[in-house]
């Protein structure tokens, strides 16, 4: 028996798991890597590019080789490191990137073609038209990638949680525990984070998060921590999330993140059976697994000698210690100094022997395990993410944390408390098979090629060769690559430079990133106060930003269009009610309320009488129309300002800016009341009678205000018309508005009318020629473009007056609001052109059929449009295969004199 095995004795293997269809047993506490090794499975994966067989190299999150797909169905997680996955009963894992099987993989042909597939080969070939590249690309894409993504939806939940602490300690090793104890003793609130299931010691008085990875450090002591409540692919406890992302704000942060051992570079250093020295110790100590029976150890430092002791104690044979230095510590094992491995060989991808240079000669050692130690790289990722500088330590041949702009410190191995190594420049007789980045199959010769071709900045080298860009983000490869680069360039490693450490420290599921916002909660849904009243009528809902509003209320199998037409006709002939609750509403109160409104409104406000209202619009500082609405003088020093639904939040900020920044001297209060009040518009020739009957009071004239009660609920009534008919907007407090709607609905239906939705509202307002922010007011139009310039306050003094003076805004050929009529339907959004192939002169902003009668009407923005009444154009929509011949008119098609809403 040769290869990895479980050391006899110890706990029973009670857990069952499957790997590539074969059932195995594991002990509780085993990682998948440990369990596979315990079962003698040494080959677990294929590499990215050359499909080389790979085994387990490490025992921690730095593992570059042993990636598997774990879980089934919607819980499938590809590219999971077998070293960072605790076995649970029923775990199912499969190997990746091989076909048809791990043992016999056709993709391995890439290895044979390797001489032609050197770094960046794809930049030098596959020329010709883009379509030809796409043909090659299809095969390249299929060959690339590692595991397969799940296709089923994820059944599990994720969540975010916030926390605050005085000290965040990252790492539950000896150094981390010591730092946490000290902080606790000083009375500080401490959060301690550990990637493994258990700490290496005990501690009390801290908030402990195990199986949690400090994923990123950001500004001002902000950390993101990824907590796994279950293992990848495992079913969570009912009601519990699978993973939790913590947002922690810490006054200071202690990094006890340890160090990562570096592999050595030689031919065949990727063969299953080559393992990091400390990983060998971990498997023996933590899992009772002996990764090999006959072991060669190759090192450039003292630490690996401890591995020899551990192997011997576990019953393995230490064949030789190859020490690259002139001398090492005293030991009873056979030591060869000035010795480095040159290559490995083996059968069926298992290690059989190691060839080494010893002094001036070479020697071969039979072995089934080669433990390597190329020194230690302090984990400086988080320190670096937080903006910390790095210092070079010649004795360690490693970067250690330097000064940090934040309250971040490092302790233990992360701070550089690791064994010193000998800095030796390896001479590589076979650089083509000497791997630097194992997962991405980047060899020493790839780096040499990149260098020769001038990709010499470390970032160019990385991007040209894909070094350090695999799922391990170069944890084991970066220093070897820098050392190689420095030796080729004839510079020191610090001169060679360093690539940036980017979050996350270890890969993080998008599910955890999204938290509870994943899937159906990716955005909040805002619900109007009268939602239940509408829902009873089973309307078609229309999304509008985060809101949903009734679009139409079809009866029976009525289509949207038929329903909307019926509803609109009711408004033209009898009456209709529509929910306008989402309109922005602002209470503007105080002795200087009018002065304030004259800053934000471009129209006159000051002369408005009490109990009267008028249309208004607001400009951005660049002079473009920002929003429109109505302003009402409810009492001497109390105004109500309404504006569009979509612009409500922006308007709230705008008003606050105008008040607090531009005119803080004004005595005025501005309160946003969008959701406070529900609003219902009652429109139609019978609206006045209906409302008078319901309220028992006479209704005001157009643009007048009344206070009344409907169904016992106090309401504010504004006589405003959007449809072109006599109409009233009725506002009641949102939580009281239900009975108001009910009363209005009953009365309206009794008069032969209907509730109507947004679609009918559109028909009516288009026919009447009212603009809408977002269609005609598209953020690029001035008051003049929208024929609103006559309403501008001559005295100026409003926001946007300066911006409007810019010369190009007076150009005659600007897009201007026009009306369009046609005998046939006009496609909304269509381009306005003289004829097919002619240049675009404008577009249709809104279109509808006439509510009563035939033909279509539309609003549009047309270059120099105001001077083009009577022109005939084509409204063309090539994407929909529709067009209509249209005549340019004034932008109003119904009751041009405006008598109907004044009656």
């Amino acid at each position, binding site marked *: 028996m040769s290869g990895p095995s479980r050391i006899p004795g110890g706990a029973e293997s009670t857990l069952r798991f499957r790997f590539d269809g074969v059932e195995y047993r594991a002990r509780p506490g085993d990682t998948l890597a440990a369990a596979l090794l315990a079962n003698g499975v040494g080959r677990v994966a294929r590499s990215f590019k050359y499909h080389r067989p790979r085994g387990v190299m490490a025992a921690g999150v730095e593992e570059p080789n042993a990636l598997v797909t774990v879980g089934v169905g919607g819980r499938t997680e590809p590219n999971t490191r077998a070293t960072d996955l605790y076995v649970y009963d029923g775990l199912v894992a499969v190997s990746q990137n091989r076909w048809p099987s791990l043992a016999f993989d056709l993709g391995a042909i890439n290895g044979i073609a390797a001489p032609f597939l050197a770094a960046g080969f794809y930049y030098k*070939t596959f020329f010709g038209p883009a379509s030809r590249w796409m043909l090659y690309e299809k095969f390249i*894409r299929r060959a690339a990638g590692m595991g397969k993504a799940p296709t089923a939806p994820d059944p599990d939940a994720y969540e975010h949680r916030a926390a605050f602490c005085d000290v965040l300690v990252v790492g539950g090793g000896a150094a981390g525990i010591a730092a946490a104890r000290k902080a606790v003793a000083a009375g500080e609130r401490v959060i301690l984070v550990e990637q493994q299931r258990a700490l290496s010691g005990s501690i009390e008085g801290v908030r402990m998060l195990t199986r949690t990875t400090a994923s990123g450090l950001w500004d001002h002591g902000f950390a993101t921590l990824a907590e796994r409540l279950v293992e990848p692919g495992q079913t969570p406890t009912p009601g519990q999330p699978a993973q939790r992302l913590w947002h922690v704000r810490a006054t200071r942060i202690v990094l006890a993140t340890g160090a990562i051992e570096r592999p050595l570079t030689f031919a065949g250093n990727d063969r299953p059976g080559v393992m990091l020295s400390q990983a060998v110790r971990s498997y023996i100590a933590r899992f009772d697994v002996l990764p090999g029976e006959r072991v060669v150890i190759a090192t450039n430092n003292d630490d690996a000698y401890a591995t020899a002791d551990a192997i011997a104690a576990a019953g393995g044979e230490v064949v030789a210690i190859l020490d690259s230095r002139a001398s090492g510590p005293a030991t009873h094992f056979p030591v060869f100094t000035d010795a480095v491995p040159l290559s490995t060989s083996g059968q069926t991808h298992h290690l059989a022997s190691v060839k080494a240079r010893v002094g001036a000669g070479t020697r071969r050692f039979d072995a089934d395990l080669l433990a390597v130690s190329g020194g230690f790289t302090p984990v400086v990722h988080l320190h670096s993410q937080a903006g910390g500088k790095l210092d070079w330590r010649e004795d360690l041949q490693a970067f250690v944390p330097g000064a940090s702009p934040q309250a971040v410190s490092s302790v233990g191995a992360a701070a550089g408390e690791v064994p010193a190594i000998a800095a030796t420049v390896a001479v590589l007789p076979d650089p083509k098979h000497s791997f630097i980045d194992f997962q991405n199959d980047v060899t020493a010769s790839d780096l040499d090629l990149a260098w020769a071709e001038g990709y010499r900045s470390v970032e160019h080298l990385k991007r040209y060769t894909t070094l350090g860009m695999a799922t391990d*983000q170069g944890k084991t490869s970066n220093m070897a690559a820098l050392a190689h680069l420095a030796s080729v360039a004839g510079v020191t490693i610090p001169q060679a430079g360093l690539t940036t450490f980017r979050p996350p420290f270890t*890969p993080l599921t998008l599910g955890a990133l999204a938290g509870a916002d994943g899937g159906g909660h990716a*955005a909040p849904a805002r619900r109007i106060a009268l939602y239940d009243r509408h829902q009873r009528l089973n309307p078609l809902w229309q999304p509008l930003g985060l809101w949903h509003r009734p679009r139409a209320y079809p009866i029976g199998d009525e289509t949207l269009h038929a329903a909307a037409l019926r509803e609109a006709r009711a408004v033209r002939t009898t009456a209709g009610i529509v929910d306008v609750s989402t309109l922005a509403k602002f209470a503007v109160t105080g002795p200087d309320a009018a002065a304030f409104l004259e800053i934000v409104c471009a129209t006159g406000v000051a002369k408005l009488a009490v109990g009267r209202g008028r249309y208004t619009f607001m400009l951005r*500082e660049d002079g473009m129309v920002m929003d429109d609405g109505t302003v009402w003088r409810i009492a001497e020093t109390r105004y109500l300002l309404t504006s569009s639904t979509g612009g409500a939040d922006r308007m709230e900020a705008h008003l606050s800016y105008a008040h607090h920044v531009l005119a803080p001297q004004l005595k005025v209060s501005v309160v946003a009341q969008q959701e406070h009040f529900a609003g219902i518009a009652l429109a139609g020739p019978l609206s006045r009678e209906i409302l008078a009957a319901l309220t028992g009071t006479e209704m005001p004239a157009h643009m007048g205000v009344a206070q009344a009660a409907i169904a016992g609920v106090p309401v504010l009534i504004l006589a405003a018309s959007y449809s072109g008919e006599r109409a009233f907007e009725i506002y009641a407090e949102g939580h009281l508005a239900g009975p108001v709607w009910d009363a209005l609905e009953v009365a309206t239906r009794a008069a032969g009318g209907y509730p109507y939705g947004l679609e009918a509202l559109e028909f009516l307002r288009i026919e009447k020629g009212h603009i809408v922010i977002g269609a005609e007011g598209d953020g690029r139009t001035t008051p003049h473009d929208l024929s609103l310039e006559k309403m501008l306050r001559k005295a100026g003094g409003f926001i946007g007056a300066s911006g409007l003076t810019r010369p190009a805004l007076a150009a005659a050929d600007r897009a201007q609001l026009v009306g369009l009529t046609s005998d046939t339907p006009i496609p909304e959004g269509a*381009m306005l052109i003289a004829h097919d192939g002619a240049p675009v002169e404008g577009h249709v902003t809104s279109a509808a059929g006439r509510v009563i009668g035939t033909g279509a009407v539309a609003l549009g923005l047309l270059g120099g449009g105001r001077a083009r009444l009577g022109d005939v154009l084509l409204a063309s929509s090539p994407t929909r295969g529709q067009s209509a011949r249209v005549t340019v008119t004034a932008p109003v098609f119904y009751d041009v004199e405006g008598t109907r809403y004044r009656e």
Partner: protein
Amino acid sequence: MKRYSALALLKAGLTGQRGWDRAWRDPEPKKSYDVIIIGGGGHGLSTAYYLAKVHGIRNIAVLEKGWIGGGNTGRNTTIVRSNYRQKPLHDLFDFALNLWEGMSDELNYNVMFSPRGALFLGHSDSDMTMLAQRGDALRCDGIDAELLSRDQVQKLIPLLDMSASARFPIHGGMTQRRGGTARHDAVAWGYARAADALGVDVIQKCEVTGFTMDGGRVTGVETNRGSIGAGRVGICVAGNSGPVAAMAGLKLPIEAQTLQAFVTEPIKPMIDTVIMSQSLHCYISQSDKGGIVLGGDPDQFPSYAQRGLPARIEKAAAEAIALVPALSRLRMVRCWSGTTDMSFDGSPIISGLPVDNLYLNGGWCYGGFKATPASGWCYAHLLATGASHALAAPFAFDRFARGATIDEAGVGFMPQLR
């Protein structure tokens, strides 16, 4: 320059990949140049290439303070498309798209331009109308755009959540089939190599620290490697335009902002086109290596930190999962940030400046990569002739003062609203 080809690659494979030339030289700066371009990103390098190729000017230097392609060229999500609503934009970007189609052959460097389609999803009838309007504007200007039904979209991307109860239900989409992705680094390297072959000096680790002026006229630049004289100087450092222009005493209608992107571990092909959305700020594509590349909202406050808000990434992930639920189990392997040059109307500036002999190419917001070849082409025209190329004329520096802004989003002068 040794030409790249399948045959050359085959021969090199037989001889251990020896014998390849350096892709570009590492020259010392000369005393002076006819044209100096500040900034060795894709835009600066393509400008140099077209100056040499189209305008026959050979005495050119591209000065790069770090390594070429190290700014936004190497940090974007590699999406290429031309389907903007506003005419000056889609004319410029479609000119670029035409150049993308022949770029690998033109440069003899495979930039892996892959026209796998750029799809915008519509989540409501009004979204679909907005998409149709944009598509119609494009089609009437001879640019491809195609409206897709719900079924067509589903067929294109089977993993989309097509359920009616989805938070962002999918009503259909608009695709530009000529759009797609390209290998961003290769664009910088390809232009550098081709420009170098035409005699352009690509000088890395050369940071401009000031301008030499003579009577209000720029006569050269000061650098960490000495003074270099120049006939004309073109700033081409989007992300850093403000500080560079400040050395000439100018303030620009530009603010720096962070934009983040992230990529998942590589997986076998699952998404075959570029997915964007009319209502969401989330874009999704899959790289040739297999990683799902995602981007979202900018950070909406001024910053050069190249370090972003985690909340933005989290929101983009949530939106991406809402569209493609199967993404939930994939893992982000890396996120990164670029500094975007947010102009005050959302459109670029390719223009002369109020200082003679000094020119600006910048303000690309978060959309510069896809413009790379057209940006270089037009800027080369400007630097060679002193006059704007017709396609770049609308993108003049003085358009803000004149009121001739080009505002695709219609949100005005505040970059954080864009």
